[in-house]
């Protein structure tokens, strides 16, 4: 099969705009070859170039005392003390997971793991933030089963514990589910590896799995080739992963790094060999010369175009110190992995690729990588959005059965037990998991230290849909609060921005608002953003876009991991303490959605100063050992938070929530910010309340743990067993 002729039409098939096609002509002074066209199309794709989002991402706060490496590398790096750094990032794998849930979600996990160990860190813990359509829809159930099994199969077989995440259901995700995978690894501070290709003359090595025709940009290939009898075999395919190979690749990479012979290393993710080599050269201001015939190949007859664009998994590109490549090849041989010298670093700033003895690519690196086109897309607030934020509580019928409402909320798909999901994940491997999933943040010990990390992902898409600015702020605040209740100090965040098409002004407005909110909240809470990922085009024609979903992944630090505070009650007879203040805020709440079928109203007001005071109080109280348990009040409000503490521990409670106006449903189910419920040994309650006073956090003893019932004033009184049963049955009954 010979390469097709490169025409403007073919370039457009590759997703390039007229402007971009012209720009290519300017850069090259000629028409690109077919492989070059492929390179431009992937390097200038939204995914690789961030052309629509860059302008907004630049506004985010990325500096902080703990930051070792901010955005721009494979993952962010923060100092966590004792000579260790945490390396972390979150990434989306949405569309592939919709098309092939098991394989798509699995390769999503594989991709984020490579981002972490490329930097020299050993992956320590994974989290997964998942959004699906309605749980009632059989196809969504099929997707949930496949996605969760895919995450489990990859993470479990690779040997990294999955310790947290979230799952929410909303019909607007039906055709565009979200699978966001986060990973956190640990490295020694002086052993971080970057994606640099410095030192002209240094050899470029390809290591890992062989290259096949996986995931090559479908439309462009189909539109371009004259097909022969082998058409079917050459059709581009969805890429599948192999966690076993990834585990070997991890061990081999860490061992190779320890030799000191590696100059730079970069995983081959989206757009494979192309993206990785361009990024490495661009960062170092060098060029690369490569011979594709030396690339280990899984199939016969692969073209230059295919080899350059293949997204086969479990591969890395690395640059070695000249003369020491043998040491690296030996390591990979020990682990039975392919490794080949495929080229060398040059000093002319050009990418020159040979295939079958011919030069098929000869283009300058920088105009393509660093100076890709950037767009200022039009933005416009969607019509009718402001009206959705109006809510007249006076028209809402008073809650006549608070006990029934609580049970209904506990059984609802978005609030019920997630055990069906995380039971399928190895939560323990590497002996670091101090607080397992099911509470707020998970806590993992940093190996060989007394320190711990609190890890969480959060976003309330309903709030983001009503008000993307406030919703994104809340996502940051909730993530920080989830870490704080474990006793950790929130340290830094990563983010995965899931939106519809940037070409629609409404979506772009949501994006602009959400990034502004995220930036403002991070600045107010002192949280640098060290890594992230943008996923646009989560929409299906005719059905609209997903709700804006800026998922926040957060890492918090516990100086002494033995002080980690679990979310659920520990013993009967403890005092129950309420921290914070409930306001008349039912807008966008689970209660409104589940009980009244309403998704409207303004999200709760966010008081970031109050959040900060609460965070400081929780950390101080945990360090003094005052807290037996602490759980933040979020989805479902204070009543659901208290019920969760009881259900998960098997210990009931008798408590009275502080009144918040005349409506009982507000005290019980409002989702006001900066609140938590804690339990504490009675002899230490006074100290806790005193400490709260010093921190300026409203606090009150509201009751006592114990018994077989969940009694919460106003007017909730249900049997613990019944609540437990309803809460734990929903997912297993729907999903099997």
């Amino acid at each position, binding site marked *: 099969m010979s390469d097709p002729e490169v025409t403007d039409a073919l370039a457009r098939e590759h997703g390039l705009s007229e402007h971009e096609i012209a720009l290519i002509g300017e850069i090259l002074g000629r028409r690109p070859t077919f492989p070059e066209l492929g390179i431009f199309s992937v390097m200038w794709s939204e995914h690789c170039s961030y052309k629509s989002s860059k302008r907004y991402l630049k506004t985010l706060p990325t500096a902080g005392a703990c930051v070792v490496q901010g955005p721009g590398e494979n993952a962010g790096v923060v100092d966590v003390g004792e000579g260790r750094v945490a390396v972390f990032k979150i990434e989306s794998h949405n569309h592939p997971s919709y098309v092939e849930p098991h394989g798509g979600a699995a390769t999503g996990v594989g991709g984020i793991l490579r981002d972490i160990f490329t930097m020299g860190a050993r992956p320590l813990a994974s989290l997964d933030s998942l959004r699906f359509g309605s749980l009632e829809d059989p196809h969504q159930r099929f997707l949930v089963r496949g996605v969760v099994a895919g995450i489990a199969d990859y993470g479990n077989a690779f040997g990294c514990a999955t310790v947290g995440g979230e799952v929410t259901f909303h019909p607007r995700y039906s055709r565009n589910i979200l699978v966001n995978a986060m990973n956190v690894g640990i490295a020694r501070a002086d052993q971080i590896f970057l994606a640099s290709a410095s030192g002209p003359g240094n050899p470029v090595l390809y290591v890992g799995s062989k290259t096949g025709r996986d995931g090559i940009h479908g439309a462009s290939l189909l539109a371009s080739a004259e097909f022969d009898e082998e058409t079917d075999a050459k059709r581009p395919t969805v890429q599948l992963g192999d966690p076993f190979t990834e585990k070997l690749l991890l061990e081999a990479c860490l061992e190779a790094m320890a030799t000191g012979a590696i100059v730079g290393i970069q995983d081959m993710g989206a757009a494979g060999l192309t993206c990785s080599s361009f990024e490495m050269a661009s960062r170092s201001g060098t060029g690369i010369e490569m011979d594709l015939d030396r690339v280990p190949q899984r199939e016969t007859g692969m073209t230059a175009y295919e080899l350059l664009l293949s997204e086969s998994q479990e591969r890395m590109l690395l640059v070695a110190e000249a003369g020491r490549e043998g040491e690296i090849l030996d390591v990979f041989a020990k682990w039975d992995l392919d490794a080949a010298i495929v080229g060398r670093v040059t000093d002319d700033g050009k990418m020159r690729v040979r295939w079958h003895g011919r030069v098929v690519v000869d283009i300058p690196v920088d105009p393509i990588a660093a100076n890709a086109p950037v767009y200022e897309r039009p933005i416009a607030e969607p019509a009718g959005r402001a009206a959705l934020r109006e809510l007249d509580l006076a028209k809402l019928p008073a809650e006549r059965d608070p006990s029934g409402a609580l049970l209904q909320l506990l059984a609802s798909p978005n609030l019920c037990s997630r055990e069906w999901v995380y039971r399928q994940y*190895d*939560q*323990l491997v590497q*002996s670091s998991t101090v607080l397992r999933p099911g509470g707020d943040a998970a806590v993992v010990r940093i190996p060989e230290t007394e320190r711990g990390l609190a890890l969480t992902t959060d976003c309330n898409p309903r709030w983001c849909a009503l008000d993307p600015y406030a919703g994104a702020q809340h996502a940051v605040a909730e993530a920080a609060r989830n870490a704080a209740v474990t006793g950790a100090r929130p340290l830094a965040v990563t983010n995965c921005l899931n939106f519809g098409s940037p070409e629609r002004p409404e979506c772009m407005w949501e994006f602009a608002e959400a990034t502004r909110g995220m930036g403002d909240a991070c600045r107010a809470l002192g949280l640098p953003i060290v890594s992230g990922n943008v996923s646009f085009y989560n929409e299906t024609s005719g059905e609209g876009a997903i709700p804006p979903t800026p998922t926040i992944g957060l890492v918090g630090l516990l100086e002494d*991991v033995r002080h980690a505070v679990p979310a659920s009650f520990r013993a009967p007879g403890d005092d129950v303490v309420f921290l914070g203040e409930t306001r008349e805020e039912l807008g966008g709440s689970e209660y409104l959605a589940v009980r009244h079928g309403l998704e409207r109203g303004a999200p709760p007001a966010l008081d970031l100063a109050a959040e900060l005071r609460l965070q400081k109080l929780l950390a101080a109280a945990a360090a003094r050992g005052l807290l037996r348990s602490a759980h933040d009040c979020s989805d479902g409000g204070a009543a659901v938070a208290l019920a969760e503490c009881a259900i998960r521990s098997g210990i009931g409670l008798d408590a009275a929530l502080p009144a918040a106006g005349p409506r009982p449903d507000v005290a019980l189910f409002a989702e006001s910010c900066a609140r938590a419920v804690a339990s504490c040994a009675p002899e230490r309650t006074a100290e806790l309340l005193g400490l709260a006073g010093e921190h300026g956090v409203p606090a009150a003893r509201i009751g006592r743990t114990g018994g077989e019932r969940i009694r919460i004033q106003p007017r909730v009184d249900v049997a613990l067993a019944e609540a437990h049963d309803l809460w734990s049955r929903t997912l297993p009954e729907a999903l099997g």
Partner: protein
Amino acid sequence: MSARVGVLMFPGSLDDRDLGRSFGLLGADVRMVWHKDTRLPELDGIAAPGGFSYGDYLRAGAMARFSPVMRAVLDFAASGRPVLGVCNGFQILCEAGLLPGALVRNRDLKFVCQDVRIVVEDPGQLRAELPPGRDLVLPVKHGEGAYMPDPDHKPRVAFRYVGTNPNGSTDDIAGVANEAGNVVGLMPHPEYAVDPLLGSTDGAPLLRSFMAACLAARTRR
């Protein structure tokens, strides 16, 4: 005198470091043994760790059994010295014929990670701190853990699940011993239940019993 315990490392072993660390915390002298080694160092006992050896493709443990090191492990077991298999290690020992029976996919087809309660029945050489009837709370984490006995070869049942059987194994079997009692395999993970920070500490008596068997074997020789 401390027990010299060898922990096998296959490609795809995942709990090898954890098992080694826990034995170490309890005072054993731990040596990691690479799958390509054909000769063993001086050892009193061998432990096969959990994980997904060779990706657990085909059947869990099916390919690890052919690793170069396994010849020496078979000889070691034949000499009557203690061999322990945990999770994937248990699957490997069954595939290698050191233990009777087989492990098949969990009844509900899903990987399961949770704490379970098991009761000691006839733990072969691991009897030092494991009297019959003793209860232990240990985590399981596996996808192919349903024990199926070989109809021609009744196993010595070392451990049974009490309350919840997480995988649907026959007669709630959680672990078995060979006829001689020196080879024991189980699905639950004692090595993840040693450090109080991480939860239960019921794994310690089990691992210490293995170390006691190691020392007894050394004395016998």
